[in-house]
């Protein structure tokens, strides 16, 4: 009988060929991004914090100016986090959207997810996937990666190239690519932000926050605990 096709486990995502100049965003690559992001925050914010302190030391009446300086030091990381959290913002509704195609796509997406992940996706619009680099939350046009420990989050912008697909099919496209080749997915997607989970949480839609909480809780579990949970019927 024909058809005994040989699988090659770990076959890279074909889309990687389109971004051949990028280095693989693996464990080491993610750690580097986290360090660079933290360094950027320090470089941007330290002078503003120091300026406020110096102003007050020179002239206590300059407290309002110092407060403005400190406000800038607070706002800059918030803007970075805002840019990151936007990757999972639901896309605007298109004319004639919904109905049969979305219903069918939702059914297929549900088949790709476990029972709890399915309920979480229905409530938040984000599909939770536990993988080697951390716990992913996949939306229509991007994904969040909660790193082990739950303190740091990476934000990735990615989309299916057919923009006319139903919403749930767009999520299914990203989910399939992620489950094929996690590092490849992170490499192909545009990296938008790396930073504190609490900053990203504040910028998510209220309905998406429980998904981030669930991903953070799962990312704090050891691999053994997570595998026990995975094996539950």
């Amino acid at each position, binding site marked *: 009988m024909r058809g005994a*096709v040989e699988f090659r486990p770990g076959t890279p995502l074909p889309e990687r060929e389109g971004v051949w100049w990028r280095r693989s965003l693996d464990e080491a690559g993610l750690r580097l991004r986290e360090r660079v992001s933290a360094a950027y925050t320090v470089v941007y914010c330290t002078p503003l914090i120091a300026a406020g302190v110096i102003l007050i030391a020179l002239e206590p009446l300059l407290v309002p100016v110092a407060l403005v300086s400190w406000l800038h030091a607070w706002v800059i990381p918030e803007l970075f986090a805002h840019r990151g959290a936007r990757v999972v913002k639901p896309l605007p509704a298109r004319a004639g959207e919904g109905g*049969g*195609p979305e219903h069918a796509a939702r*059914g*297929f997406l549900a088949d790709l997810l476990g029972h709890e992940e399915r309920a979480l996706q229905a409530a938040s619009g984000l599909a939770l996937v536990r993988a080697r680099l951390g716990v992913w939350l996949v939306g229509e046009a991007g994904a969040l990666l909660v790193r082990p420990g739950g303190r740091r989050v990476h934000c990735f912008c990615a989309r299916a*190239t057919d923009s006319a*697909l139903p919403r749930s099919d767009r999520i299914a*496209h990203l989910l399939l690519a992620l489950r094929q080749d996690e590092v490849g997915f992170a490499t192909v*997607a545009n990296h938008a932000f790396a930073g504190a989970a609490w900053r990203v949480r504040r910028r998510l839609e209220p309905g998406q926050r429980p998904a981030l909480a669930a991903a953070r809780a799962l990312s704090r579990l050891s691999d053994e605990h997570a595998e026990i949970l995975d094996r539950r019927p």
Partner: protein
Amino acid sequence: MARLVRLDHSGHTELAEWSAGDQLSYERASELFQDQLGIGYMGVAKLADDSFEQVKELPLDVELVVLRRPIAGG
């Protein structure tokens, strides 16, 4: 029965079904699969351990093969 499913504007479309004991159904599905690759779809097979693999030929002994469009950075 194994299924060949395409993610498309209708949500998803089941293009073919085949079984290990039915060579004709497999060959028909395989032909359809190659046609879809030719128009830009990518084949992803669901393996027994619930993982997914890129395939360029239709595997015989899997339960599901999905045809998807490429993804790109947003």
